[in-house]
């Protein structure tokens, strides 16, 4: 029992299990492999964003601009592709590079200019979205992807590739966090930045990297989103940051930094996907889903505090 209580991901595991069992009993057609795969595919972008956010939050920062950076990458993809003769590969690379650039900008402002993450990413949130609108042109709400992008559309929509990609990103994130110095440095900075710096960690570099990585992932998510919708929508990614951060927090990563779990974040996204499928199949209004998300967020953080309290108590009585 003591060991189980130590698991940070406990609340989200219980949540996923509970949701699954509940919906399996109450929602018609819930347990359907193909259907579930489709739903999970829709959440692949969130999962990819959540991995990057886990690293950032673990380092004590935050990034509320991921949705806008996703949108910017999507629109850039659409704009580049609408030039005749441009290659799909180049367009995708540019989109991902743009995402990385935004992330690097965030990282630079946080690490070198020493500005607060929330305000930097607030300004990026507005600026990236605004520039996406400007790029798309006045009065354009979406750019249809041309025929040569069909490969992307097929891969994103008709195949499980997005899910596979999300899994790859998740594994990479998990490895980075748990198995090598980089991950240890991130968490050290998140726990106590001063101490980390004094112990020789290049805080600036690590911070720059986590924001740049997240920007990169947002760019990738932007490309996938464009593929799945067969269109580059100027509002793509709007609001994604809220849901992604919620998934990360539900997953057991601590907002104050120092404790992070990629597995938890991915499970948080899975919980959101299960909720969406379950409520959708039961015909329950989407607004109730929003409310449930809010309640879940609060309850899961409370439960996590409870868990930490019990873990500390039981550790003492060893």
């Amino acid at each position, binding site marked *: 029992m003591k060991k189980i209580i130590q698991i940070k991901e406990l609340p989200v595991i219980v949540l996923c299990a509970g949701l699954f069992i509940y919906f399996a009993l109450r929602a018609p057609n819930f347990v359907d492999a193909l259907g579930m795969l489709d739903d999970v595919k*829709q959440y692949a972008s969130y999962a990819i964003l959540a991995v990057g956010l886990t690293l950032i939050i673990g380092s004590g920062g935050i990034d509320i601009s991921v949705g806008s950076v996703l949108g910017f990458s999507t629109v850039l993809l659409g704009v580049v592709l609408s030039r005749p003769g441009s290659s799909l590969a180049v367009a995708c690379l540019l989109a991902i590079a743009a995402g990385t650039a935004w992330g690097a900008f965030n990282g630079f402002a946080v690490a070198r200019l020493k500005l607060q993450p929330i305000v930097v990413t607030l300004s990026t949130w507005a600026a990236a979205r605004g520039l996406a609108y400007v790029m798309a042109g006045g009065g354009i709400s979406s750019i249809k992807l041309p025929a040569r992008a069909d490969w992307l559309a097929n891969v994103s929509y008709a195949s499980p590739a997005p899910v596979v990609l999300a899994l790859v990103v998740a594994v990479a994130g998990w490895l980075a966090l748990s198995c090598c110095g980089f991950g240890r440095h991130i968490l050290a900075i998140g726990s106590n930045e001063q101490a980390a710096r004094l112990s020789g960690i290049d805080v600036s570099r690590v911070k720059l990297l986590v924001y740049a990585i997240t920007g990169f992932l947002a760019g990738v998510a932007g490309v996938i989103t464009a593929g799945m*919708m067969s269109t580059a*929508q100027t509002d793509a990614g*709007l609001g994604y940051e809220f849901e992604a951060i919620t998934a990360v927090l539900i997953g057991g990563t601590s907002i104050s930094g120092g404790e992070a779990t990629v597995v938890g974040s991915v499970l948080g996204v899975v919980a959101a996907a299960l909720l969406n499928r379950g409520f*959708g199949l039961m015909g329950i209004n989407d607004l109730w889903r929003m409310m449930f998300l809010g309640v879940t967020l609060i309850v899961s953080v409370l439960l996590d505090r409870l868990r930490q309290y019990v873990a500390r108590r039981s550790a003492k009585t060893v």
Partner: protein
Amino acid sequence: MNRKLAIICIALAVALSGCGKSKEPAAGAKGKRTIVFVFKLVGIPYSNVCQKGAEKAAKDLGVNVEFTGPAKGGDVAGQVRIIENQISRGVDAIVISPNDPNSVKPVIEKATRRGIKVFTWDSDAPETKRIFYVAAADDVGIGEDIMDRLAKDVGGKGKVGIMSGSQGALNLNQHVEGVLKALKKYPNIELAKPILNNNDQPQLAQSGMSGLLQRYPDLAGIACVSSPGPPGAARAVIAAGRAGKVKIWGLSLPSENRQYLKDGIVNGLILWDPAKLTYLTAKLVNDYLDGKKPTDGMEVKDIGKLKVSKDGIIIMPGVVITKENVDQFDF
């Protein structure tokens, strides 16, 4: 310990399964026919009125007619997810008003492959496998209509502005396209730039209009293509003391403009009855599922003659709302 935990989880879940509510499982092969309307979003007056039409159709036609949509406006991905859910349920027909016409192409294909009939209403997805589209008028045509009537009211000359909602909404952009197209017919009318965006927020509608009035003290009129536009513009015009001198035409609900119409501050609205539109669509879809295809010029009770074109667009007569007839409408 592991086992204990598992038992607790299961017990919890079983206990939870006692509460909560769900709709009837979808028909599929057995049970009542189910038609699901997936709108752009839920929780706004326009969608509520559409929903009333769907509910009336359910009663009159004796089939399940449901109405749903994402909670957030412009949520393209959320809408696709909801459509995927309907495919999982195995419903008989899905009727969509897409947030973005291209984004629903793959999911419509998938539904069609699974034997579900897909239609669109209110907003179209033209290059997809949807069987037909029911609308009051085409989005560009409505914009043109608004501009024509505004032009008449300003006497064919002067500066007129345009107010849209959010920059990312396709139907709004098409309305604006229509307004600009019609504008070309009037050489003595000049566009008062910039085109305003009110993001569907009344305060921005008002402040945008106030700003425009400051920029052009002799502004003659404004064409508003999104709902909060006309009332917001009206408030700004009243506050600036130019009520009646600045002509306002737009797309908005009569209930939000009733007093402004009567006082002559808003000159007129162009709209259609969203409930009737939804009801008509449900009826046509139901008929189609019975094997009866819609034909050009067909008469429908309470609605009038329908125009049906060969790429499946069905036009329901729209309505112009002015102070003379505004009280006839309760939405």
